[in-house]
């Protein structure tokens, strides 16, 4: 960290996005470099999740203006799985369940498809065990079906486990802290901090409590589809304390 050379991971330029004809994002600009943690805060409906989803390539979101670059290359031609293979990761707010597909099998296949060299059986098991230990996850997780019947906290842990294994260059974390008790939050934060050393992180959250544990370099306040203010960690504290009304006024 702190080297003179900055390595750009994500560049969002004047991004306008609509869903079913309704404009959601109205000109977002954002640059994230390797090793930086960015937090985006805002009220429900401000467009935070849309930003994360559109960067990952969700087909329901239509870019009407502006561009997104990942490590200097435009993203528009890349399919979702190609983005994943290029090193992008989205931790979902509501991860989908895949009944009948066991977590262990799913993780192995996912890692094999993202990494250049597919993981070898024993080495992978070792790596998987270590990652699960960090997240205080019981081995019994591996034989359960992906997110099927999982509690909110279990789903989020599985998201972070995937992030640790996939070692992304860009991690988008969409309300990963919601629904977590304080112990789980601590464990999840530890996982994020570990990945954040080598990647760019975009954390979407409503609350300060995750940012107490994962210290952001930049905090962005989003209102009605635009980033209205950017600051350091102190901005998050003020938003938590005073809400968003003062920004509305300022705008």
């Amino acid at each position: 960290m702190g080297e003179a050379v900055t390595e750009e991971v994500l560049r969002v330029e004047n991004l306008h996005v609509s869903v079913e004809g309704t404009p959601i994002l109205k000109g977002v600009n954002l640059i994230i470099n390797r090793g930086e943690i960015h937090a985006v805060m805002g009220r429900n409906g401000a467009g935070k999740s849309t930003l994360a989803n559109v960067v990952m390539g969700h087909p329901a979101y239509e870019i009407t203006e502006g561009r997104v670059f990942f490590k200097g290359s435009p993203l528009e031609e890349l399919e979702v799985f190609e983005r994943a293979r290029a090193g992008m990761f989205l931790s979902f707010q509501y991860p989908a369940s895949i009944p009948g597909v066991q977590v262990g099998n799913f993780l192995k296949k996912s890692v094999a498809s993202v990494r250049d060299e597919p993981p070898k059986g024993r080495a992978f098991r070792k790596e998987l065990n270590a990652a699960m230990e960090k997240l205080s996850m019981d081995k019994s997780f591996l034989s359960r079906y992906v997110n099927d019947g999982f509690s909110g906290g279990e789903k989020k842990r599985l998201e972070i486990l995937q992030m640790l294994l996939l070692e992304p260059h860009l991690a988008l974390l969409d309300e990963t802290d919601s629904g977590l008790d304080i112990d789980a939050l601590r464990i999840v934060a530890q996982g994020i901090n570990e990945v954040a050393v080598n990647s760019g992180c975009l954390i979407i959250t409503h609350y300060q409590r995750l940012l107490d544990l994962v210290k952001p370099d930049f905090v962005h306040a989003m209102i009605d589809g635009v980033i209205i203010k950017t600051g350091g960690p102190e901005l998050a504290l003020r938003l938590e304390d005073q809400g968003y009304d003062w920004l509305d006024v300022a705008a």
Partner: protein
Amino acid sequence: MSNETEEIIGDYRYGFHDPENSTIRFDKGLSEQVVRDISELKDEPEWMTELRVKAYRHFVERVMPDWGNCNLLNMIDFENVTYFLRSSNKTENSWDEVPDDIKNTFNRLGIPEAEQKWLGGVTAQYESEAVYHSIREDLEEQGVIFLDMDSGLKQYPEIVKKYFGSVIPHSDNKFSALNTAVWSGGSFLYIPKGVSVEMPVQAYFRINAKNMGQFERTLIIADEGSTVHYVEGCTAPSYSTDSLHSAVVELIALEGAKIRYSTVQNWSSNVYNLVTKRAVAHKNAVVEWVDGNIGSKLTMKYPSVLLKGEGAHAEVISVAYAGKGQHQDTGAKVHHLASNTTSNILSKSISKDGGRSSYRGLLQVTPKSTGCRSKVVCDALILDGDSRSDTYPTMEIGNSSSDLEHEASVSKVSSDQLFYLMSRGFTEDEAMGLIVNGFFEPFTRELPMEYAVELNKLLELEMEGSIG
């Protein structure tokens, strides 16, 4: 391989075929003489000849079912079917003795390898008759009889006479009549009292010739307190003309016995697969049908169990995959004929590329059968707008002391599931493959591992190029 075959072989891995070498081949078409000729050729006892003839007459008189896919049924040209084809003069008990062409085919299908690794016995039927048959010595020493049906009739005529047609009379339906008239091959399996057969025994049915009719007849008797797992697989070459597979399978589970019968049929999409499968479960017996339908043009098959003795249990777990040009009309029937009998039916179907799957089920509890329990679950997954799924459940419940549950669902693959999986590096086809394999998992986990792996691969292949 002829051009004609190549054109339609597509992704179907088992669509290759051998030259049609035969030692005896009947002319196409069906008549009383053909029926008598088959019986004479096999040097059968007179009662069997007469049964065949009676069944033939019934077949001629019996009208086609007026339900199911009548359009496809009425397209069957019974005069354009070869009813008997012998391709090897005897049933060998060493693969070395099996004619090379045929041996190679079974090698490609992986049968000898599976036999060495995990099977207790194997029958391999090619066209009308078994070309290979063997059973492990230790099972034979315990008195287990595992033969092809023709040999069974020769060596154990009294057992065959007692049970043949006892569960499925020739007059049950048009196709059971046809099978009884022209049957050839199939398995005869008897497990003595108290014997538990740990390794599954397998039969493999292969059609090779064009316009072939395969009419195997299987009879399994599990004597008191015995257990057995019987597995069958089926494939055929892809031809542009149709073949007909019409089997009859009868299972008898005597008191306290347990029979599991697992099938994965993967016929090529030019095969009519019209099969009658029915079991009788006596007191405290268990019968499990594990039935996978992946191939064929039209399948009509509803594995049934007659719960005849108190405490008997039936389990029918089935999956159907209906792809382009396929109709899987499948289901289950359970008749609770005694008190305190229980049953579980789980049916899962997938329709894709205009394919159609239908669940047709019957659950019957007679008025005197009290304290019965049954659960029926039908889940259908439809992968695109051209495809179709229907459900025809029938329940006849004769008393109020029985506890019955029925759940049905029809779903589509959600865009959330696809996006989630793709964000983890899976292509859309791979994501579909995972979802589909997961959907069938409650079935797949019941199969021997080797079959499960094969089935998953098969489904993944089916998902390739599925999305534009």
